[in-house]
């Protein structure tokens, strides 16, 4: 109630300000209503009589943000969220939060600054949100659920949402170089408990120099470090990553070709821990990007070499926690087993997605991504990759990616794993191909991953394959009314060794994971687009999880969803 009174007072103040000074205050935000009805069925050797099979619920929320510009050099943003769980009334189930708060401005027309919430990104090796994606492109019926997670977790353009301060400035020159941009930031990763856990901060800077319109180079630096004095213990962690980069654009037979090179090193250590190793290593990432003169195709060929001891907290944070609890049905079967994540959880469960950089190395999932769990910054990888897209056919778009990598250093053996990932995605504008007026989009694609190792002895052998297939369509049968549907089929089969890492991120043990899991998720729904920024949709979706090795009981989960979403 106290919060509500504060909100009313704040809005009154803002309204007064708006009345006095026109065009200095804008309201932005969004609203959503989310209703779900889920049903679980478990195929166990004994009938599951302990798990509650039905789950119904949902919420309504409104995000109300006020963007205030008290003068032409200052901008303030505050956003509140009021959320009410369905079934709550007169305050029960209601939460009131501050969702965003930042202030930015310009000092002396030279230095721009921002305080509070920041969206930060540098390079894939320094600070980068390597967003987990089972597939590069998903059918729109699943993508709209992923978009809700992206909104909730502030995932925009591979940035991480952090809290702190950021300054940047740009300088222009007449001789030798055209311009220089400098950006620096400092954020707090973790708060102290005033006992054993020190404050952990993340800070860094970028200096980018543009020599000519086609040539640039620069430096990135990012440091994660414990703040001395925030606990009595003098043992402090630090992780420093320094990289240099250069870029050159040239025309080769009218093809715009961009050569990019980034290389750097990292050091991760504890100051006063005799057991902690000092991990030092380097990486090299060089790639050539070529665009056809008519823009019909573009292609990238790259070389990647990331050392086994390369550690970068800002780049190796995963945005999905495979050990986290889901929104529903965390345990199942008579033995109250921890339910393994399904692709439906990956598509719609907000709880397993993280909001910011995590200070510890997270455990990847071999089943979903054994090759690049930490994106390009995945340590112990060497090899090449190729990406291409083609828009030459009328109404058809094609993208392909191939990674061919291997380990640099053996994991528990001197033999190295070999990795292959191939992905193809396609989109078809069927209404153009069939010359009809009602928009009809179809998309299809697959991702294949293969991890192989032939050991010196049979126990070291690794053979893990995963295949994800997707298809989806969107048909607008009446103005603003669409039928949306999609299918994802995923199988992960074989074995690989999961590294159990200690707090120093070195390996203590290897667990041989054997798996043969097949999953199928289907969805069908109706969507009404009121405007580009608002829609309502009713969906029915189902996932079938089948473990052929009988490690975990099979299950089927069905869901009906009614979602209203708008932004303003």
């Amino acid at each position, binding site marked *: 109630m106290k919060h509500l009174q504060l909100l009313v007072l704040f809005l009154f103040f803002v309204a007064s300000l708006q009345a006095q000074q026109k065009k200095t205050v804008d309201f932005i935000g969004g609203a959503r209503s989310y209703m779900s009805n889920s049903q679980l069925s478990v195929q166990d050797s004994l009938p599951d009589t302990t798990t509650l099979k039905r789950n119904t619920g949902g919420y309504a929320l409104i995000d109300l943000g006020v963007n205030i510009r008290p003068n032409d050099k200052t901008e303030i943003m505050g956003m509140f969220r009021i959320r009410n769980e369905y079934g709550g009334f007169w305050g029960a189930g209601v939460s009131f939060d501050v969702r965003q708060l930042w202030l930015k401005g310009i000092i002396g027309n030279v230095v721009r600054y921002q305080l509070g919430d920041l969206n930060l990104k540098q390079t894939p090796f320094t600070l980068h949100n390597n967003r987990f994606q089972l597939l590069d492109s998903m059918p729109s019926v699943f993508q709209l659920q992923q978009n809700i997670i992206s909104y909730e977790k502030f995932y925009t353009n591979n940035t991480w949402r952090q809290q702190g301060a950021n300054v940047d400035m740009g300088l222009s020159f007449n001789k030798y170089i055209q311009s220089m941009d400098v950006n620096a930031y400092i954020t707090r990763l973790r708060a102290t408990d005033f006992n054993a856990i020190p404050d952990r901060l993340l800070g860094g800077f970028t200096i980018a120099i543009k020599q000519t319109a086609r040539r640039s180079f620069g430096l990135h630096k990012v440091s994660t470090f414990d703040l001395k004095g925030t606990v009595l213990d003098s043992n402090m962690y630090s992780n420093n990553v320094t990289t240099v980069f250069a870029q*050159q654009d*040239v025309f*080769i037979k009218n093809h715009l070709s961009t*050569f990019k*090179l980034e*290389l750097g090193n990292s050091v991760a250590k504890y100051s006063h821990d005799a057991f902690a190793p000092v991990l030092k290593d*380097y990486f*090299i990432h*060089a790639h*050539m990007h070529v665009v056809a003169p008519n823009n019909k195709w573009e292609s990238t060929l790259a*070389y990647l*070499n990331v*050392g*086994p001891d390369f550690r970068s907290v800002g780049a190796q944070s995963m945005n999905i926690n495979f050990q986290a609890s889901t929104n529903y049905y965390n345990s199942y079967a008579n033995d109250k087993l921890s339910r393994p994540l399904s692709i439906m959880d990956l598509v719609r469960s907000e709880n397993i997605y993280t909001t910011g950089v995590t200070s510890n190395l997270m455990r990847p999932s071999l089943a979903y991504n054994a090759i690049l769990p930490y994106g390009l910054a995945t340590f*112990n990888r*060497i090899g090449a990759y190729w990406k291409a897209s083609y828009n030459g056919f009328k109404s058809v778009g094609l993208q392909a990616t191939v990674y061919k990598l291997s380990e*640099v*250093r*053996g*994991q*528990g*053996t*001197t033999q*190295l794993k070999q990795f292959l990932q191939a992905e193809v995605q396609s989109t078809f504008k069927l209404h153009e191909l069939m010359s009809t007026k009602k928009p009809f989009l179809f998309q299809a694609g697959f991702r294949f991953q293969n991890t192989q190792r032939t*050991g*010196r*002895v049979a*126990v*070291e052998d690794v053979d893990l394959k995963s295949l994800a297939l997707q298809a989806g369509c969107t048909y607008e049968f009446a103005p603003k009314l669409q039928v949306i549907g999609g299918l994802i089929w995923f199988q992960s089969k074989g074995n690989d*060794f999961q*590294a159990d890492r200690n707090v120093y991120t*070195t*390996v*203590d*043990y*290897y667990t*041989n994971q054997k798996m043969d899991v097949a999953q199928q998720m289907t969805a069908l729904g109706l969507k009404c687009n009121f405007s580009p920024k608002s829609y309502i949709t009713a969906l029915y979706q189902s996932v079938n999880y089948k473990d052929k090795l009988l490690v975990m009981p099979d299950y089927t989960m069905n869901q009906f969803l009614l979602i209203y979403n708008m932004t303003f």
Partner: protein
Amino acid sequence: MKKIILIATCFLGFTFLSCRKDATKIDGPSIEELYSSFKMLANFKANKDSVDFASGATVGFSATFNKIVSWKITITGTTSKARKVFSGQSKSIDAASTVWNGTTTYFPLFAAENCIAKLTIDGVMDTFQVPIKIKNTRVINTSLVIADYENGFNPAWVKFVQTGANMDFNIKSDSSKVQGNSYLNMAGTVNWDWLIGLIDYPASAYSTTSNTLNLNANPDAVYFNCLVYGVPNTNMSKVLFQFKEDENADGVFNANNEDEYAFNIDVTWTGWKLVSIKYSDITALVNGQPVTPKGNSIHNPNKIGKISMLHLADKALGAAACKIDFICFTSAPLEL
């Protein structure tokens, strides 16, 4: 064209430079070892079959395996049933790192007796054992023993016991003994007060010439220790020790202008447990909360005039019981 050649050369150069040469190194433990079947490469053995701990002698154990394993050595006294446990995760057990000096992990204390050291390994059904004979137990170094109850009740001690039900504030010598042959049993039901009983240990019980205990003046070099037994299936006991400093050495403790420090032990466990605390870490308490002491606010272990030991229990809960033994001061945390 020159630019292209230059860029391509740089690319190839960096690629060449980035070739790594640590192919013989591996990350983590060897998978071949981890997943091979267990083999004992060198038998489990002790470096002596009898030991005189009183003379400072020790026993070391050794064994070698074909892979890293989680192992545990349990030494059990055949008479006392005292146990000493070592555990670790390694490919070998080294006589230099697993050194037994006669101390105990699970009470009572070891006696002069025959012992069996048993090695168990996670995931391995077989056990391996060696016999060891203790010729003499280790000497426990103390600065001052306040009470070990071996010689009965010291007449200088002052005992007060409430008149509740089933009151027992007596020295006993039975199978529950932990150090020596005797201990103090404290039990009863007092449903109108927290206090069940108390014993005052005045300095006069230990010296006829001084009003204070003969301890080091440095509170960082004085440790207070005792053995406390939690009785299973009874309500939680509290054992409160009050250290009353006679700062002016007049033989009288004045609560209004002299320091009183208190150490409260909530007996939340069952069986015997060694409790040890540095004197400088003991605070003044009122109703269980730290307060500023009323004297010079300096820990003066050499000015302790009296130690009061109170056995307390929540009056609403009913009966409470615990046992206590070997109340002593040492210059380092007591090791038994």
